[in-house]
């Protein structure tokens, strides 16, 4: 073995020991999760703790004539029953939403959706609380309700929000009707209209991204404990953004922010459902402040599905204009957005329709115009980003269905049409017609790799044969090939356009090296299962040469973690991941000065080597990071502060733009409408890959949720506003049996502005997956002239497609 080989081998061994970026490090949090040793909100038991439970409205829209709590209060074990009348003197019967609206905590004069919170019973245990909810007598006068958002702005529509009836200037401009929330426009209307007027070919279709729900396995819950002596509130809860919750609690309660301790312990999934503030949080806080003992609130499954934030309900009239040889010239979209009874979307404050304006997708579309109208209906509020960045699943669904419809009209292959219109590698950074600057991308390479891997040409040939066989009556199965080429926009975001309630959407990391060379690092984000404890440690390990196993990652305690905006919209890696790298580099810079002092050389004479600084040209003269850590505490250079720690609040210069090419092969039994996914291939480009195994896990999860949404998951209402199927009996949460097998692949196009080039990946598979499944279904029926088939594609709906086409005769 020669010297160089020895050196290389030694370096490889030291690198491997770090378990840094790029390695498939096993998730450290899984040790406790897989043993049932996680610690969730509902695991918390405090002395004297009481339990709260809600009395909920059976009506979708009704006037409350009276509330009589006397029977409930008389039940032994009931401590208090709160109604709006109790909260009103405190100014807490309404709370502000992240979208600039207010939302009822407990209904005052009217209820506006079924299962809305009307009273909060506090009792010695949850069984008594539950019994007592049945003893609160509420006298309702039912009112006509609005379920169809297209009726919301009818002249004779019942006015839903009497509390803001006269406030015709909303948080996002003028309101056109008392049931109107906002109109949001972007792009060049005149230029777009002109393109459409002169185009060779246009398509127009109403694409509905139906109402569904993020449905995390752990429901929303909180425990509030107010110490009357100290005047301090500790609030444990299922918070994706604990610092934001602290600020909101301070603003609405009047308690000084330093006397509020918000703690998000282990969280069992969020998917956007746990970003906002809920009545249960507020009522547990008020209960604890009033009673001076801890109060716990835990949602059950039906409450979670029917009251806390839903997702989507976007009705998107989508148009494309193109030349006859398939060059897309313009896009025009009008969205009717059903927000339910309150505008409780969890978007950055200036973005009432989230980042819907990413809807030009992966294509170089020179001209576009987008209008979004938000309206109130008698349904639960929300409109959160369910495993996606803000409204990006909606946007990608619109463009990816629309290009398929255009391809069909042009008689062109859908993959070919996409490639023809892709933004070219040399066009990045690319400024889109609707205002975004895409940081990087190489769509052609990704698409080619995906098509070659799935054998796209062969699949089309097989499909052609099967279609002929179907026409001849030899089979009752039809085959669909779904394609989706998505571009996400994640990592909100730059302060110039992203804030929440005025707080810029930076994120943070604080890293402390202990004298013995182990590390604690705290971030402003909050994992709900993403694996932060594993992956942040890998970033630090690579940056400063301390093994990931010696690095503890802590999140969720607002007293100890630096302020951050939380985890949603795939922002942890793009923003807090960047903060982590920058913070680590500050430490490394100081470590270099210390090492220079120790080795008695000039800083510039040192070079970094995996886990140590060594003297250039004298590799045997070095100091490891561990040695430097010790020195920093006992013998720092003269005039240098002791210790080795750093904090960074990272302001991202831009969003990141992950992308991917997905293919789905589906076989549909036309007699039952049952669709079977034969193959699903997902190529993701999320830039630099921190942990390939964690990425793969994220992709599997996101695809499974995409599969659910596309193929049957929905929150439906009947014409009376009764919420249908708000339990796991009906709500489609796929098990391992239904879930297709996932094939994953990748290309790597690093983000040019991110310190480690990473882009975020947790939500890409959902964003790209939903249209891919829907395109496969639509593609299967296309040769029969079905036209656009709306989601969800559950069996009975597909059977109805076949019935309309006369396939069952």
């Amino acid at each position, binding site marked *: 073995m020669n010297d160089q080989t020895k050196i290389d081998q030694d370096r490889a061994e030291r690198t491997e020991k770090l378990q840094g970026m790029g390695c498939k490090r096993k998730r450290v949090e899984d040790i406790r999760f897989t043993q049932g040793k996680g610690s969730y909100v509902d695991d918390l038991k405090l002395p004297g703790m009481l339990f709260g439970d809600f009395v909920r409205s059976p009506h979708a829209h009704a006037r409350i004539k009276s509330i009589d709590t006397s029977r409930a209060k008389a039940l032994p074990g009931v401590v208090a029953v709160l109604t709006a009348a109790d909260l009103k003197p405190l100014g807490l019967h309404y709370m502000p939403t992240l979208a600039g609206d207010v939302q009822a905590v407990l209904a005052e004069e009217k209820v506006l959706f079924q299962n809305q919170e009307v009273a909060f019973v506090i009792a010695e245990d949850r069984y008594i609380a539950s019994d007592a909810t*049945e003893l609160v007598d509420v006298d309702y006068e039912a009112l006509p309700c609005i379920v169809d958002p297209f009726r919301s702005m009818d002249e004779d529509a019942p006015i839903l929000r009497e509390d803001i009836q006269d406030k015709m200037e909303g948080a996002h401009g003028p309101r056109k009707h008392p049931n109107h929330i906002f109109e949001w426009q972007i792009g060049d209307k005149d230029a777009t209209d002109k393109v459409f007027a002169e185009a060779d070919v246009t398509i127009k279709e109403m694409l509905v991204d139906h109402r569904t729900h993020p449905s995390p396995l752990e429901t929303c819950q909180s425990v509030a404990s107010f110490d009357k002596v100290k005047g301090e509130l500790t609030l444990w809860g299922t918070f994706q953004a604990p610092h934001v919750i602290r600020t909101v609690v301070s603003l609405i309660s009047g308690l000084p922010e330093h006397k509020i301790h918000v703690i998000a312990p282990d969280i069992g999934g969020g998917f956007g459902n746990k970003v906002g503030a809920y009545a249960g949080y507020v009522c547990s806080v008020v209960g604890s402040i009033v009673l001076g003992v801890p109060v716990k609130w835990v949602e*059950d499954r*039906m409450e979670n599905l029917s009251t806390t934030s839903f997702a989507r309900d976007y009705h998107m009239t989508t148009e494309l204009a193109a030349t006859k040889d398939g060059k897309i010239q313009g896009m025009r979209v009008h969205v009717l957005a059903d927000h339910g009874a309150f505008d409780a979307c969890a978007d950055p404050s200036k973005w009432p329709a989230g980042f819907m304006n990413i809807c030009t997708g992966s294509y170089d579309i020179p001209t576009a115009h987008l209008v979004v109208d938000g309206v109130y209906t008698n349904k639960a509020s929300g409109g959160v980003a369910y495993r996606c960045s803000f409204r990006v699943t909606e946007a990608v669904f619109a463009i990816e269905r629309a290009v398929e419809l255009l391809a069909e009209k042009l008689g062109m292959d859908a993959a070919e049409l996409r490639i023809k219109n892709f933004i070219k590698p040399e066009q990045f950074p690319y400024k889109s017609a609707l205002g975004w600057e895409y940081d990087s991308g190489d769509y052609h390479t990704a698409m080619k790799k995906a098509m070659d891997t799935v054998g796209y040409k062969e699949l089309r040939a097989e499909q052609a044969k099967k279609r002929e066989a179907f026409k001849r009556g030899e089979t009752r199965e039809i085959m669909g090939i779904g394609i989706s080429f998505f571009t996400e926009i994640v990592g909100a975001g730059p302060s110039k356009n992203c804030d929440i309630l005025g707080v810029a959407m930076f994120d943070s990391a604080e890293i402390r090296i202990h004298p013995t060379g182990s590390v604690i690092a705290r971030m402003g984000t909050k994992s709900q299962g993403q694996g932060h404890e594993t992956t942040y440690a890998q970033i630090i390990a690579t940056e400063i040469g301390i093994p990931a196993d010696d690095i503890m990652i802590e999140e969720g305690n607002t007293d100890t973690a630096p302020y951050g905006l939380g985890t949603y919209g795939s922002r942890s890696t793009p923003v807090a991941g960047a903060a982590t790298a920058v913070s680590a580099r500050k430490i490394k810079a100081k470590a270099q000065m210390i090492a220079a002092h120790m080795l008695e050389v000039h800083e510039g004479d040192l070079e970094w080597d995996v886990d140590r600084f060594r003297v250039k040209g004298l590799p045997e003269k070095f100091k490891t990071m561990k040695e430097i850590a010790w020195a920093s505490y006992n013998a720092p250079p003269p005039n240098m502060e002791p210790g080795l720690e750093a904090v960074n609040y990272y302001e991202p210069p831009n969003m990141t733009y992950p992308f991917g090419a997905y293919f789905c092969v589906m076989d549909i039994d036309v007699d*039952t409408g049952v669709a079977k996914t034969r193959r699903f291939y997902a190529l993701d480009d999320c830039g630099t890959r921190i942990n390939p195994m964690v990425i793969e896990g994220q992709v599997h999860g996101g695809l499974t949720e995409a599969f659910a949404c596309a193929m049957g998951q929905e929150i439906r209402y009947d014409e009376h506003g009764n919420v249908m199927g708000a339990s796991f009996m009906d709500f489609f949460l796929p*098990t391992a049996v239904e879930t297709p097998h996932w094939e994953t692949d990748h290309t790597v196009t690093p983000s040019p502005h991110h310190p480690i080039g990473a882009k975020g990946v947790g939500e890409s598979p959902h964003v790209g997956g939903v249209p891919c499944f829907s395109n496969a279904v639509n593609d299967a029926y296309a040769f029969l002239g079905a036209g656009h088939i709306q989601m969800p594609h*559950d069996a*009975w709906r597909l*059977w109805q497609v076949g019935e309309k086409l006369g396939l069952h005769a």
Partner: protein
Amino acid sequence: MIPGAFDYHRPATVEDAVGLLAKLGEEANILAGGHSLIPLMKTRLASPEHLVDISGIGDLKGIAVRGEEIVIGAMTTQFELITSHDLEKHLPVIAETSRLIADPQIRYKGTFGGNVANGDPGNDMPALMMCLGATYAVTGPGGSRDIAARDFYQGAYFTSLEHGDILTEVRIPIPPADHGYAYEKLKRKVGDYATAAAAVAITMADGKCTSASIGLTNVSETPLWASAAAELLVGTNLDKASVDAAVAAAEAITEPATDMRGPSEYRTKMAGVMMRRALERAQSRAKG
């Protein structure tokens, strides 16, 4: 998702259970595996004041061949139905059906008797028991009696059982060894009740159907025994025209509710599709 308050009783014998039920009156419910009752209680659609848990009664468990019949104790779990050698030999359709009930965890606890006696049209065993001509043995305050499965189901959650009756065992005539059978179930996902399902048992001789029996699950207030449809098959070679006619006759007696599984007309048609597919599979298995 929290049930109302109730008292819990766990008798050791059928006599004690019958006595308890008589004493406690209408507000007492029998608890078998609990997989239908407890969800109803958690959503407060049922609020019994007393639960009489019969899982401590050893006599109610077990599978045995008795003469020309298979006898299954009411508290036999669905898992035990799947793993029984006697059933595998004589009535394999019972295991085939059991495997389509819920998921493994539920099948460890869920009982055969609960499934047939609860009167939920979504349960899978009732249509199969009607198809197979089973007899239910019932013990009540007035002693014991038999009720034919085909006479048992009166409406949704409404059966020939009276308050205080306990289903103790089910007797099923052993079909000829060369019979053909199948249970076809369309469901949205694991754990779901049927959108529609069909149980079929036939015998064939010289290419002709010599007997046929058909049960349908979850397409009416009660499980259905499609006797007219079955009669249309007997004497035919199960040609397309005969099967079409039988399917139409079966569809004609369905009256499914529109629910999240689909609209009524879809579920009717799925009853037909499931019956057709069950019949094809039964025919492929019939040895005569």
